[in-house]
């Protein structure tokens, strides 16, 4: 009987032998296959050519994003999820690539539309010859089905996009007028309705894959993982997740894409590679592991890559804005003058230049520049306008000896980009006035939201990513109840309601301008900066549109 230690070692050795044996066996197998191939040289060449061809027609995209929950339009509410859905699904209308306003809509599944004068009845003529699964032709019933489903699911998915965008509040009902004609009847006049229809949550679903319940990721097959009708340029051919994060996503060109005639999609296969954080993604694009890195390359890395000849950095506008909220229900910010004084002491450019290295631009209106109704209202307060700040605060008895003191809160678990550095610079700028003393406080995202709802924060930085591209989805932030600033202003609200009740662009522009002006006087919420978007690609990649929609339209990309 051998020594026990020895027996254990022997067992280990045996295991390793088995493993290595397996290795050898398999590797020899592979060798066998290869030799078999090399026997038929021609076929080998074919294989190689095929491989090369596929390389030319495949775009490898690296990202730090991940689909948050699902690809069901009735639920999905995250950037990446919506971006994938845009590639595989279809909406009635969409925003034309390169749009600067986000409101120039082009035909997609609908070829024509018109709204009644009261903006409550919207009729759409559908595109014929678009096919769903099993050669079922797309028709009005599908549109009705899609919207009825989305609204019906709202109670069971209260956190879903349709709930967030208020489908149930806006849409009264949907009528099938004829095979190719559909009508939406709204509860109230709603100008930005096209904006809603252009969002992912208005994607048309395929009844065959869209039960009246929500659809989630199922390991079984990619097709069953989404209820969307595959009428987009691509179809979802692979989707694997681990522990609620994406592991791999593959898109293949959709053979019955309605617009295939005009040569889209340019690239046949899109493969998404999921990186852990921006630094690893940056290393990957630097090393040429991926053709394209989109979201998130940090500002400093982007600056670094500008000088790298092996990559091309694309810059575009953005619609993500951050703003400073004041708790107006108690001192000191129950006094408008204090709010204005603080707003005037802010220094936006130092943040956009130092923290974001120019990948963000100062915002003087809650509505992003370029978009209808965007103004420079807040610029009248100026930046680091200390004389004004001092004079205002002096009126209230604050000075170098008796400083205005308050807590400035920021979120510290990485929910917003660089919120810690931002906060530091805001504090610096405010205190440079000499009459303000700021205490920085931080909380992780969950606690931060709790604090917001409990209204314990004097001043806090918040961010907004739009649901649909219309000033209508921004202007209300000045008095949004869920920000718990306790600021309300009936005049602004009525202006807002007028604006959403008309399609007259000039009128709307004026209305939003008025809202902005009042906001600049009131300073309940102070816009800080608006993001820009950026993508990094290999030099041989073309057709990257980074417009105000912030949608990445992969079918336009070629290499």
């Amino acid at each position, binding site marked *: *009987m051998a*020594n*026990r*230690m020895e027996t254990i070692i022997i067992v280990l050795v045996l295991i390793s032998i088995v493993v290595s044996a397996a290795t050898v066996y398999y590797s020899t197998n592979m060798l066998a296959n290869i030799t078999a191939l090399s026997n038929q040289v021609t076929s080998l060449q074919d294989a190689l050519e095929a491989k090369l061809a596929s390389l030319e027609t495949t775009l490898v995209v690296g990202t730090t994003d991940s689909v948050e929950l699902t690809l069901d339009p009735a639920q999905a509410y995250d950037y990446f999820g919506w971006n994938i859905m845009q590639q595989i699904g279809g909406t009635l209308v969409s925003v034309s690539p390169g749009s600067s306003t986000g409101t120039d809509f082009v035909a997609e599944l609908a070829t024509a539309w018109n709204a009644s004068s009261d903006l409550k009845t919207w009729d759409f003529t559908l595109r014929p010859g678009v096919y769903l699964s099993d050669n079922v032709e797309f028709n009005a019933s599908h549109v009705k089905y899609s919207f009825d489903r989305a609204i019906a699911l709202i109670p069971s998915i209260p956190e879903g996009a349709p709930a967030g965008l208020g489908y149930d509040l806006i849409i009264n009902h949907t009528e099938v007028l004829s095979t190719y004609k559909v009508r939406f009847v709204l509860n109230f006049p709603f100008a930005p309705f096209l904006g809603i229809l252009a969002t992912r949550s208005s994607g048309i679903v395929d009844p065959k894959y869209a039960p009246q319940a929500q659809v989630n990721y199922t390991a079984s097959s990619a097709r069953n993982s989404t209820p969307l009708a595959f009428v987009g340029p691509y179809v979802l051919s692979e989707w694997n997740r681990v522990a609620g994060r994406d592991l791999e996503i593959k898109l293949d060109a959709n053979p019955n894409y309605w617009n295939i005639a005009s040569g889209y999609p340019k690239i046949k296969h899109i493969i998404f590679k999921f990186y852990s954080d921006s630094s690893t993604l940056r290393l990957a694009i630097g090393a040429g592991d991926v053709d394209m890195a989109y979201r998130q390359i940090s500002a400093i890395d982007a600056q670094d890559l500008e000088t790298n000849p092996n990559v091309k950095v694309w810059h575009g506008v953005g619609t993500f804005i951050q703003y400073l909220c004041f708790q107006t229900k108690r001192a000191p910010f129950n006094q408008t003058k204090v709010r204005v004084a603080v707003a005037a002491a802010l220094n936006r450019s130092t943040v956009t230049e130092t923290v974001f290295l120019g990948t963000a631009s100062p915002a003087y209106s809650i509505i992003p520049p370029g978009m209808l109704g965007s103004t420079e209202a807040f610029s009248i307060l100026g930046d680091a306008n200390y004389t004004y700040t001092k004079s205002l605060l002096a009126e209230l008895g604050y000075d170098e000896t008796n400083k205005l003191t308050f807590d400035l809160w920021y979120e510290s678990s990485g929910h917003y980009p660089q919120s810690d550095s931002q906060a530091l610079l805001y504090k610096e700028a405010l205190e440079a006035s000499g009459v303000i003393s700021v205490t920085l406080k931080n909380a992780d995202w969950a606690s931060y939201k709790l604090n917001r709802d409990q209204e314990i924060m004097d001043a806090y930085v918040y961010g907004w990513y739009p649901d649909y591209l219309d000033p209508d989805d921004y202007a209300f932030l000045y008095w949004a109840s869920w920000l718990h600033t306790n600021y309300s202003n009936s005049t602004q609200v009525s202006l807002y309601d007028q604006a959403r009740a008309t399609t007259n662009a000039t009128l709307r522009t004026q209305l939003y301008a008025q809202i902005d002006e009042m906001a600049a006087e009131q300073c309940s919420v102070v816009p800080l900066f608006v993001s820009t978007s950026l993508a990094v690609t290999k030099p041989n990649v073309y057709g990257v549109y980074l417009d105000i929609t912030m949608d990445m339209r992969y079918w336009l990309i070629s290499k």
Partner: protein
Amino acid sequence: MLEVNSLTVDYPTRGGTIRAVENVSFSLGKSETLGLAGESGSGKSTLGLSMIRLIPPPGRIVKGEIRIDGVNIVELPESKMRILRGQKVAYIFQDPMTSLNPVKKIGAHFVELIRTHEPNTKKEDALERTKKVLGLLGILPERMNDYPHQFSGGMRQRIMIGLGITLNPNLVIADEPTTALDVIVQAKILDLLENLRRAYGMALILISHDLSIILERCDRIIVLYAGNMVEYASSAELHKNPIHPYTQGLLRSIPNIELSDQRLSAIPGSPPNMLNPPKGCRFSPRCRHAEEKCGLMEPSLIDVGNNHFVKCFAANDEGVAVE
């Protein structure tokens, strides 16, 4: 076959150097028995261990030579030394409870020993020999597959002895082989040792603090005190006329029928601090006959007739002055 010449062993410590053994010389013929007597700390074990060059570090032999069959092992390279151990010289330790590998079967100990020294022995043969040895020790062969903790102390000491004699060496060194055992077992073990020694014609060095055992088991005796040989004689001679006061003390401290008129007594005082031992005669501070020169001069080891060596001014006046 064993010849030790003016052997000196030092232990460098943080406090200073301890001279554990100071030029000890003696020799041992084939199948002779020698006893090393002395209190604990007198350097017995160090002397014993230096015979197989296993003095625990940092102790080391600084002077003198040890010849086994003429080979001076002090200069021997470790590789050669290793072969010598177990094959020519066996060493039996004081505490049988801790001198076997607790996670090794008894049989394995033997097999390992045999195959280390005779690499081309088959395992079966090794096992056979083990069985034989165990037989000699009066242990059932099937207990080969038991672990040490399954044996009693006496049994384990038998096994240690067995391991010692397996390769029938010429010399066995038994360092307090029975101290850890109770009296009845002691006798048995010593008898076993005795018989095996005769049977295999081995020489034996028996180290013990118990002079009585040595007196009855050994031909010659070395009495060590503070690393010095203080007396060296045949047991009979030593028994008849012990000269060194220390030896006398030791003898007096054994219960003895013949000296029944004298009452039992222990040696007053305690062993010296080896870091700075007393000047002159190491024993002088505890010696009842000590004169002042004992503290000034160190007596030398002198033959007082029929191979009876003594290191004391009581036996002779020769000595070296110490500064």
